């Protein structure tokens, strides 16, 4: 509690001088910089360098070998499966029967051989295969803005080994050629995209077509 006598004196002290925030004490300057700020900033730079440069470089240097064996089947969300070609490398996606613990298969799987890449993506879709192909074209055009691959030719029909009818269209880009195929199983849309060099051989083309035709949905017959 304040002393009642002295509390009657209400004169507060005058303002105390504080140097401007940009001011740096003469003994803390290093080439004009506040030397006290250098170490923490370098520590943050080091962390940013590790995260943005070191880790991506290490990842790029580490090879990945998960080669498809005969009989392998890749499974995606919504019970969609396809049979990858033996000898191709699995970039992403998991084999049927090896679901993550959550029970949820990923929505995308990618395999590649040399410069040819084959990706299958699945998601909800209300419409038929032609409408899905239109939607994929619209979204791709909007994302690419005229750059990259673009659709050439008219859509044609493709039928899977399961007997499911889909739509496909050829795409081309600078030194690139490919195919986009679309299928709709009930309310489940499936997009298959293969891209590679424009001079890709007949063997790779046949392999891609076999993978597209192997696309199926477990229990589709029951629906």
């Amino acid at each position, binding site marked *: *509690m*304040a*002393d009642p006598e*002295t*509390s009657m*004196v*209400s*004169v*507060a*002290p*005058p*303002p*105390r001088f504080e140097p*401007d*925030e*940009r001011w*740096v004490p003469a003994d803390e*300057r290093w080439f004009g*910089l*506040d030397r*006290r*700020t250098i170490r*923490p*900033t370098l*520590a*943050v*730079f080091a*962390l*940013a360098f*590790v*995260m*943005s440069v070191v*880790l*991506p470089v*290490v*990842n790029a240097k*580490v*090879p*990945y070998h*998960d080669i498809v064996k005969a009989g392998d089947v890749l499974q995606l969300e919504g019970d969609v499966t396809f049979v990858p070609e033996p000898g191709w490398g*699995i970039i*992403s996606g*998991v084999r049927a029967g*090896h*679901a*993550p*613990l*959550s*029970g*949820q298969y990923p*929505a995308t799987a990618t395999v590649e051989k040399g410069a040819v890449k084959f990706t299958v993506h699945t*998601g*909800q*879709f*209300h419409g038929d295969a032609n409408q899905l192909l239109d*939607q994929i074209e*619209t*979204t791709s055009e*909007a*994302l690419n803005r005229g750059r990259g691959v673009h659709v050439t030719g008219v859509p044609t029909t493709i039928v899977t080994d399961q007997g499911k009818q889909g739509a496909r269209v050829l795409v081309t880009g600078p030194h690139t050629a490919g195919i986009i195929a679309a299928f709709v199983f009930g309310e489940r849309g499936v997009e298959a995209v293969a891209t590679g060099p424009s001079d890709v051989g007949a063997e790779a083309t046949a392999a891609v077509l076999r993978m597209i035709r192997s696309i199926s949905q477990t229990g589709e017959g029951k629906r």
Partner: protein
Amino acid sequence: MTTTTLSDLDHARDVALDLSGWGRRFVFYQPRNFAFWGYLLLVGIGFLVFVSTLAREYDAYGEAIGLAVTSFAIYAGLFWWFTQHIDHYAKLPAKLMVVAFLWGGFAATGAMAANANDAILALYGKTFGQVWALNWGPGLAAPFTEEWAKGSGLLLLIAFAPRHVRTAFDGFILGAFIGLGFQIVEDITYAMTSAGTQFGANQVGASIGTIALRMVSGVAAHILYSAIFGAGLIYLLGRPAEPRKVGRGLLLIAIPMLLHGTWDSVGTVAGPSTLKLFGLLIATIVVALAIVVRVYKLTVKREQDFVRDVMAPEEARNVITAAELDAIAGNRKARKAYLKASRKRSERKRARYVLNAAYALGDELAAARGADTDRVRFARAEVARIRAGVPSPW
């Protein structure tokens, strides 16, 4: 019994103002501060990454982007209001909070964590297989990359604003703003990803669930993690107003990393059972909220002491009463008890106004570094006017 004189109280006020940094102006442009350049570079890179992503995807997912940006802007506004609501004490400059928010939104995401997350998840897949990476990858990547990317922002802010970042509570508040920035930008990115899940069709329908879920869970996610981490970092390093407590600091840094890892692994731990998933999600949120409340109470005590030291001379000069001093330097319970002490509704209303005027006086005193300026005298007069029930002439 020792007698405290007014000059003792004034001295204690000076010490409190010096230690807390309360009321000091924050200057952003500090060309001689290396942290300023580090901040500018990393936030600039992150900003360019974010804007170029938005620009690239806008034509395809414009509807979802518009919805996400609008929704999360409102969310950020509500959070800002909430922070003002819980921080009655030695407030940080609003400009510094914006600086923290921008670090979380741009530097911690686009310039740091996003690159590291992609690389680590790919490395997990290569080393342990795709299924293992899907199961445990997110829970063993993000807690390290994201928490440290955000936390490093506070380290930079300590160097950038050493006169302001003084207590664990400052770290708590700035950490929360860094987390908010991170959360908002990450949520917008998630909404864009959701917009593409149905091939770009039904964008709003595809992304609205993600937006709602991220908003609800966001309170117990990045904002909370970074607030705890921020307090921990200050304890670990020590500041003029916060003695170094290494053990406490390390614990408070480890806790959000553990919470983050748990949150990201809930789906894996729960397995295919929706009920188990739901139960685990709620349990994680409850535990996280209980911890953050505990950390808030732990850190805010020093700030309350600063308010008491700054306002005690006002009580001694009879500008405010002892009960008002206890209320403004106390917690919510103390303020409620003070307001409830008045019998009539009109008196309670006036008591609340007096408290608000006393808070304003505290801010003026801090800005004047305890000096008797015109603004301080006016703020004192306002307390007296409101107490007397005289209408404002202004």
